[in-house]
């Protein structure tokens, strides 16, 4: 990378356009979320008490800062409903992520062992579902899982079950939905890590008398570790905040925080609480990112 300084006018322009965009539509909105989370709900339009207005200037700012309230945060933390929603989001996301890894690992391994000229096509095949509409993929599972759905129809006609299985509108359906939707996110980093492995390592191990089982656990898995961590992160983080999957596949009792946020916002119109829920969710998600960061540092140091 060249370190030519200072930047020319043209470069400055090329940098400031996306920087300005990100500031306006990404960073500023988050400052606003924090601000509204700290304000009190009010029955007005918009439904919260203003914390500070630009017109007040800096002298007004100090005055208003003293009126900031942590009430909504206290409410969200002490409220059993939110607490269990956070917990059950984490539990469902963790379970789904683990299952996704179990399904994706053998698949990525088989892909990486395929003949070279197959591999690009296999990778394309693995990513393509990600680009078909998310809603359509969830809709497909509604078709399959409903009581009168295709899976129950098939099992009934084969005589394997006497009454339709109740999968739809349960946590099981939510798990299937998450696994199905995020599988490509897990396959890709795993495949990248596995494909790079030197096959001669495995040959050497087997020449030295290692069983395939031993060399799998002592060579293949440890070398795939960066891919495993990246995959876990890529699935877990969006899964925790998922709204569409629990809403369409889950039952009315399936608690997930993305859904609580949505309801708080659209149905209860309690914007400060919705904002506080969002901030706490962000804090929750930064934790696995930090763990990942540390893991990366360790891998680099190795």
């Amino acid at each position: 990378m060249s370190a030519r300084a200072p930047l020319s006018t043209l470069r400055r322009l090329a940098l400031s356009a996306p920087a300005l965009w990100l500031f306006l539509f990404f960073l500023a909105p988050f400052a606003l979320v924090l601000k509204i989370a700290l304000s009190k709900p009010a029955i007005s339009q918009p439904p919260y008490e203003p914390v500070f207005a630009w017109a007040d200037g800096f002298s007004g700012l100090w005055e208003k800062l003293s009126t900031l309230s942590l009430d909504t945060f206290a409410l969200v933390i002490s409220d059993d409903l939110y607490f269990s929603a956070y917990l059950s989001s984490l539990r469902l996301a963790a379970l789904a992520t683990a299952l996704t890894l179990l399904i994706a690992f053998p698949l990525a391994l088989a892909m990486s062992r395929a003949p070279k000229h197959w591999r690009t096509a296999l990778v394309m095949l693995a990513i393509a579902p990600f680009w078909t509409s998310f809603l359509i993929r969830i809709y497909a599972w509604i078709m399959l899982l409903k009581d009168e759905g295709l899976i129950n129809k098939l099992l009934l006609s084969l005589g394997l079950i006497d009454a339709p299985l109740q999968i739809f509108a349960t946590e099981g359906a939510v798990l299937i939905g998450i696994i199905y939707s995020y599988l490509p996110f897990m396959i890709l980093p795993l495949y990248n890590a596995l494909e790079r492995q030197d096959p001669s390592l495995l040959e050497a191990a087997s020449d030295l008398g290692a069983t395939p089982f031993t060399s799998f656990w002592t060579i293949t898995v440890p070398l795939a570790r960066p891919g495993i961590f990246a995959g876990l992160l890529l699935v877990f983080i969006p899964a925790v905040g998922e709204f569409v999957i629990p809403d369409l596949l889950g039952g009315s009792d399936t608690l997930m925080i993305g859904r609580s946020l949505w309801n708080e916002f659209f149905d209860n119109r309690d914007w400060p609480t919705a904002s506080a829920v969002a901030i706490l969710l962000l804090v929750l998600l930064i934790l696995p990112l930090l763990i990942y960061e540390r893991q990366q540092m360790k891998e680099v140091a190795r």
Partner: protein
Amino acid sequence: MKRGLTPFHLAILALGFGFLYVPIALVVLYSFNSSRLVTVWGGFSTQWYVSLFANEQLLQAASMSLRVALASAALSTLLGTCAAFALQRFGRFPARTLFAGALYAPLVMPEVIIGLALLLLFVGLGIDRGFWTIVAGHTTLGLCFVAVVVQARLAGFDRSLEEAAQDLGASPARIFRSITLPLIAPAMAAGFLLAFTISLDDFVIASFTSGPGSTTLPMRIYSQVRLGLTPEINAISTLLIGLVGLSLLAASVINRLKAPAVR
């Protein structure tokens, strides 16, 4: 254990890709079902496609989605390419880490949070929500995908061509136009198509940033799915899958056609 596929591997591949593709294939298959009940096969028919084109609301939503996707993909490509250049070529500049963080954060951040934040911004600024607010939301998401693709291209880029042109006395503008741009054009095109499909597909951010009269196709599909299954959803899904399939195919063909020629 040598490289090569054992029957065991083949079975895993078949099962894995079956899991990924059978549900989608069933949606397509049942769009040609003549029965009103989605999960009961009543014979082949294309009636749901016919009724689709009589559904005014759905057509309006589709046209809205297409326009939003085109506008946001164009903006994403422009801004994302600039951002990729900034990160790959400009060396150190103030707040580079913050810039990169803000650029790539939307890749993993739950959409409900991005949507909520954007909505609060638009309300706070007193902007009426509609076409352009959805475009703004989708561009924020799309530009990071474009940046990823273009940055990867720039990273694997042979700078000696540019240096040779410079030694031969070409102006920076000339170098950019006749060397740099043609080399990264396939990545930009691929980025455009990715941003386009992401926008076309997005439901959550659009729900937060749309106003009355600016309903997108996924929003319409979502409300229909909540009401119950109808074969019409299968028909519109099939059309969308076809559209996305075609643009993916185009993206890979563009990338493959031009890549060897310039190396």
